[in-house]
């Protein structure tokens, strides 16, 4: 199973902590991590990207270019993210190169999906919310949570 290449992407803090709670699955594959901060548990295959959010246009452009480079050079079979901006770009670009894409919206979004989560729905093959009340036939599915 190790031969499947996974790119696991999240911004620092809560998004990354949630992504790393998937380690029992991610560790079974050849997983590379991408974030704007290193965190214990990501191992040696880690790439640093810039910290950007929806309000910072220039940083978003830089982040997009960094993510494009990573997707082109790493050629993952699967891209998975729990948020936010870096994950959205990764899922979008991953879809463009034909990777399977997974978006797990943060458990912090209990009443509506995150902004990046709503946009990611277009590009995610598996689009998940962690709140059953937010699941719908045309929207994200609920299939468990990080807690």
């Amino acid at each position: 199973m190790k031969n499947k290449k996974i790119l696991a992407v999240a911004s620092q803090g809560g998004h990354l902590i949630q992504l790393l709670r998937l380690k029992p699955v991610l560790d079974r594959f050849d997983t590379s991590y991408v974030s704007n901060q290193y965190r214990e548990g990501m191992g040696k295959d880690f790439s640093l990207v810039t910290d950007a959010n929806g309000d910072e246009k220039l940083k978003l452009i830089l982040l997009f270019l960094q993510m494009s480079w990573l997707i082109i050079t790493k050629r993952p079979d699967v891209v998975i993210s729990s948020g936010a901006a870096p994950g959205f770009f990764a899922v979008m670009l991953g879809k463009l190169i034909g990777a399977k894409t997974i978006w797990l919206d943060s458990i912090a979004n209990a009443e509506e999906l995150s902004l990046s989560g709503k946009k990611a729905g277009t590009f995610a093959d598996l689009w998940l919310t962690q709140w059953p009340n937010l699941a719908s036939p045309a929207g994200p599915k609920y299939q468990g949570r990080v807690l």
Partner: protein
Amino acid sequence: MIFLTVGTQLPFDRFVEIVDNFAATHPEIEIFGQIGEGSYQPKHFEYCAFLDEHAYKAQFDKASLILAHAAMGSIITSLIESKPVVVFPRRASLGEHRNEHQLATCKNFESLDGCYVTYDKAQLLSTLDDVTNLHGGHLGLYANQELLNSIEKFILA
């Protein structure tokens, strides 16, 4: 020791000021805060703007109580370490965040064991006055099996 954290992304002066008021009347309680780039400067406890991962962990490990904005990272870490966490949400209506998801987080985690949600100054201070009755929650290191299975199945499909 109490560890106050408001994350690294945005300041949270309103929360920091309430904790400073509490510290002024409780000099016997040691408090350390990671308070971001706010404009309010605490006078009654030690603080810094940012801690790196190791310094954060050191302060976190020393603490017997965590005081945090309503961010999932702080809540999850507190539950894993079985430390009681008192949560105070940022409000977008007061310019403290981009949207009201921290209020939603609070509403949905009110009943979570070991997580003490407070919505205003009075509630926060009364919770802190009752500090000996707060206990830590329990949480494993990983996501629930349903989610792990579903993601693995999807990757292998």
